[in-house]
């Protein structure tokens, strides 16, 4: 999953990005509204974490401009806790609202819920036959047996599971799993796919030649 964090406070941006990366997200960073809006428009992010008090363009304006083009889930992360601010934020098209200071675990949970809802899934556990994917603990079980996956492998499984019965292209996988800082080798996706097949069974992921990959629920 690839998220964009727009935050003008460098220290805070840094720690949020680090925490999200540890959670397996690909994270892009923006330090002002202009940059944030540009990035949010040019990529299919799974979610955007948006501060409101931003230089150049404030968070509400970024949100309004983004909403004219995209439905990317947006979580507002701000120190402004007045009810009017929350209402304004949610009315401008934000999907969730979190007030600083916040618990990282709450930020993670809200992001997971946003991404899940955007994919049309209501529950935290996605079941694909014998395979169950728990997005809360980021763990996968096969016939109730835990399957050890690396963060990238898990992210790939989750991405495919959220888009089950849909063909996910290699480009999409790159877009959602790697941020701009990753050196994405051309065959990295194939390596991850073969590792997952080794752990969850050959038939778990179907290859559509020339198109991409698909899992069936």
């Amino acid at each position, binding site marked *: 999953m690839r998220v964009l964090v727009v935050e003008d406070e460098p220290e805070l941006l840094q720690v949020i990005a680090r925490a999200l990366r540890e959670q397996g997200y690909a994270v892009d960073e923006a330090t002002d509204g202009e940059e944030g809006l540009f990035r949010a428009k040019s990529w299919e992010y799974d979610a955007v974490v948006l501060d409101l008090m931003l230089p150049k363009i404030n968070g509400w304006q970024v949100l309004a401009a983004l909403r004219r083009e995209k439905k990317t889930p947006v979580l507002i992360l701000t*120190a402004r806790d007045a009810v009017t601010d929350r209402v304004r934020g949610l009315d401008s098209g934000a999907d969730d609202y979190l007030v600083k200071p916040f618990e990282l675990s709450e930020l993670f949970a809200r992001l997971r819920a946003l991404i899940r809802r955007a994919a049309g899934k209501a529950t935290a556990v996605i079941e694909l036959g014998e395979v169950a994917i728990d997005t809360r603990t980021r763990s996968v079980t096969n016939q109730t047996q835990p399957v050890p996956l690396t963060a990238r492998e898990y992210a790939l499984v989750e991405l495919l599971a959220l888009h089950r019965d849909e063909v996910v292209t290699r480009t999409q996988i790159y877009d959602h799993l790697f941020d701009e800082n990753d050196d994405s080798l051309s065959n990295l996706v194939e390596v991850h796919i073969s590792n997952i097949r080794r752990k969850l069974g050959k038939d778990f992921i179907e290859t559509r030649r020339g198109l991409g990959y698909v899992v069936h629920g």
Partner: protein
Amino acid sequence: MVKSIRARLQIWYAIVLVVVIGGFAGVLYYQVRKDRLQRIDARLEAAVRYLEATVRSLPPHELNAGPPPPGDGPAPLERPPFRRPPPPPERRPPQDGRPDRFGGRPRGQSFEGLPGRPDFEGPPEREEDFHGPPDGPPGRRPQVTIELPGSLLDQPREEPEDWPYFVVWRANRSVLASSPGREVGPRPDALAFSSSAPTGFRFQPGGRREAFLTGPHGSLILVGKPIDRELSELRAFAWQTFGSGALVLGIGLLGGWVISRSITRPIAEISKTASAISASNLSGRIHTPGIDQELLGLAEVLNEMFTRLEAAFLRQSRFTSDASHELRTPLAIIHSNVELALSKPRSADEYRQTLTACLRASSRMAALVDGLLTLARADAGRLDLLFKPINLKSVVEEAIDQYRPSAEKGGVALTVAQCDSTTVHGDAVFLARILGNLISNAIRYTAPGGQVQISLRTGSGFALLAVQDTGCGIPLEDQPQVFERFFRADKARSRTLGGNGLGLAICKTLVDAHDGTISFTSVPDRGTRFEIRFPIEARIDSVGEKIQLALGSQIEPRRSEPPTFLENRL
């Protein structure tokens, strides 16, 4: 005292109304009554005068109390007078065709022998009527028949008791003549006047008015008339007058109550509006159209106050919101860093990194809290400045030493252009803080390779401290707000450069506390120059002048300032 304006108004109003209306009604009644009585009295007096003239024309023996004339016999007994009621006037044909001056009635009711008398000013012809042979007790004289012309008094009424009547007593208290059909009492003593006395009037029981006059030879003439009808008319008039007065009073009081309510209602509305205005809702205003002029001023003053209050509250709430934002951000940094570090075992380097981030955030919070406290104390007037003579030169030198490392780190040259030894009266800590804020700001906003120059010189009556940089300058549209709390010209730059937006606000507050002024000139992309003027005490000033005088003209007044950076560059 009643505490309600309205009640007081009403009470005063009522008192004034009662006095005015009561006084008016009383005067009116008194005047009308007096007028009616005067008219009655005038008629009675005319009758009295007439009778006097008649009596005067009688032969003296009829009047005197002396021996009776011959043939008169013994003093006649008092006997009932010959009753001859005057014939009803309507049946009496007019004596002549002349119109009557007195209401068209035929005149000379009893003076048949004198028809057409024009008036009664002169004494009438004598008319004597001896009532036959005396049959009364001896020593009493018989009465004389005299008639009053009916036109002299009011028209006789139906009942004989209502007729006007008269009595003439002789000096010896016997009755000389009296109106027919009337019992005559003894001559009243109290009415014994001298002949020169004017006509007297009196009320008698039964609603009668009597006029009396001392006639010739000690006789007493009395004419009476029942005036109960007039009196009852006057009573009715009194009732009407005072009744309508009471009605007017009632209407007036009611009107007063309504008016006083309309006067006090705007006050009640003003107080209602004012009480509805609270910290949470300051948008309410008193509706001024329709308010009376006297209250308009009050309403406008209150409205202006509400506007100022609203602005102050708005500023306050924005300040609170900004302060909470500034405090929450480093808190979030600390919280997130610690939470992330604790989520799994880390290497010593990672922990060090986390702790460093936490330290930076907490230093930032400490600086912010310190700044907020300074401002709060200044707002509360409790800065606790420790004033003493301070040489600004040493403050400048210390600041240079303190900030040189950070200037070098930022590649900025920190220099001193001119540094006079100038003593001001101030607080050393706060003066250092003012200068420190300005220098750190200048370094922060100046790109590497730039220059920050400090100068200190003495003007007439003030010390001028200037900090000038070749930095990015302040955008023109932001210049009016630079001294506002939490204002940052370029937010993006200032975030990465640090600073909490309070520095210049604190500078201004502290300079104000030193009775100084702070100003700046800034050209975007060229640089900014901040100038602070501190007053120099007159004492110090005069010492300086004395020194200057003692040294003669050796100390030339300097050019105010060497060419500045900006001037050089512009």
